[in-house]
């Protein structure tokens, strides 16, 4: 049966609309990548608008997660108790060790001044979203420009570095995790002081690249931010060496991103150094390892410069 003129017209209109949407969508891929300020602002505006909605929808989802977690905890209570007793014992030993090292650190700092923390103030923020796609590892956190968050602010937990703020909205910010494929963190190996660069792979682990040929990373060796570039402060734990194989060094991040709920955004520190604010030194100073003699900034454990 032949189509009527009005039907033909409607079909044509629909095709034009479909084509237009396709062109818009396709060009968005390139516009988004071009890093246009107006586009980023629009994106963050949308995120500000969406964040409360997703937060609301997350309530039952989190409830189910908590319930499952509770059941699992009850099931493994005995094993957990044994593990906790052992862990408590280990932690006590570490506490004593930390006290000694802290005092040693303080002495070293007073001599060299190299590890003086910059004027950064931690701001607690809640992770509203978690990475859900395979192509980007970012999280949306509460607090934005209204609380003084700026792009470039490091984001940490007590375990170590989470990432860096890349986009700031009025009340929410987007954090690029160190596991994202676009994340490049200048680091040093804590015990041997060799510099390198961690690269995210959009997976669980990071790759440590650009290590000097002489560097021999050992398994379990701590990897810390080097502070090169001036954006991230030195001494934030990034992860530990997990695999060394034919020049390939794999890092397991210090932070378990699967359980990210609250983070600290380190405000300030991008313009100058506030030596009066020493709040963070207790948490984010590097932890030297016994067996190796080389230490951060070329000073060994006995205080001698290498």
């Amino acid at each position, binding site marked *: 049966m032949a189509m009527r003129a009005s039907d033909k017209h409607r079909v044509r209109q629909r095709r034009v609309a479909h084509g237009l949407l396709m062109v818009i969508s396709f060009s968005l891929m390139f516009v988004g990548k071009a890093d246009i300020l107006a586009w980023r602002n629009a994106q963050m505006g949308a995120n500000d608008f969406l964040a409360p909605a997703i937060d609301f929808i997350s309530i039952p989802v989190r409830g189910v997660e908590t319930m499952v977690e509770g059941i699992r905890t009850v099931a493994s209570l005995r094993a957990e108790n044994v593990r906790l007793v052992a862990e408590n014992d280990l932690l006590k030993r570490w506490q004593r060790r930390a006290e000694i090292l802290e005092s040693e650190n303080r002495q070293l700092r007073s001599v060299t001044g190299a590890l003086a923390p910059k004027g950064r103030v931690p701001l607690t923020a809640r992770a509203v979203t978690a990475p859900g796609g395979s*192509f980007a590892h970012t999280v949306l956190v509460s607090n934005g420009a209204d609380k003084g968050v700026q792009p470039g602010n490091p984001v940490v937990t007590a375990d170590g570095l989470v990432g860096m703020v890349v986009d700031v909205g009025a009340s929410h910010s987007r954090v690029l995790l160190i596991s994202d494929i*676009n994340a490049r963190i200048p680091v040093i190996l804590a015990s041997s002081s060799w510099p390198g660069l961690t690269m995210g792979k959009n*997976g669980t682990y990071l790759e440590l690249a650009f290590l000097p040929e002489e560097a021999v990373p050992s398994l379990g060796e701590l990897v810390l931010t080097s502070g090169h570039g001036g954006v991230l402060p030195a001494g934030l734990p990034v992860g530990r060496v997990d695999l060394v194989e034919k020049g390939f060094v794999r890092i397991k991040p210090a932070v378990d991103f699967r359980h990210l709920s609250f983070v600290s955004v380190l405000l300030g520190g991008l313009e100058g150094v506030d030596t009066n604010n020493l709040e963070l030194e207790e948490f984010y100073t590097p932890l030297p390892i016994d067996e190796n003699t080389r230490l951060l900034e070329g000073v060994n454990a006995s205080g001698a410069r290498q």
Partner: protein
Amino acid sequence: MKKTGQYFEKAMEHSEVSGRFLIGFVGIILVLFEGALASWPIFYGAVPLLSLIFIYWMTLYHNKLMPFITIFIMGLLSDILFSDLIGGRATSYMLLVLFMNLRVTDPQDDEFLKVWINFVIAIIAVMLFQLIFFSAINFAIPSLSPMMFQIGVTLILFPISYIFLFAISNLLERIKVFA
């Protein structure tokens, strides 16, 4: 002078508007739900593509209620939420629906297994499209294992979602008839 048939057509079309609006709303909620699911450690970095299942099922069985603009909005929203390549998911979803609209056979006659196999091809095509464009624009290939996991979980969830969507659809039909 306009024929009376045209008025009936217009009225029919207008009666679908509320349904389309509702489907659009459900689609948006589903995308937000996907975002919420990412907070489960098991789905970290690889949330099942529930929105794709929904779009696929709707296009297959209720094509008229799934306008192109809804697919565009759903895709764009998930792009913004997951901060993927903005427009990547939207384009791939729309391309998939365009391709599905070219189908000659009546999907109602298809066996479930055939529908499932077609969905396997659809999801692989959607992910490949995004992977190719993402790699070309970023000059880097992301880790493939989360992608495999995402595809796998979505494929496992497909039959469950399929039955669930059919159940909801039948329920709505009954309510409609009853009303």
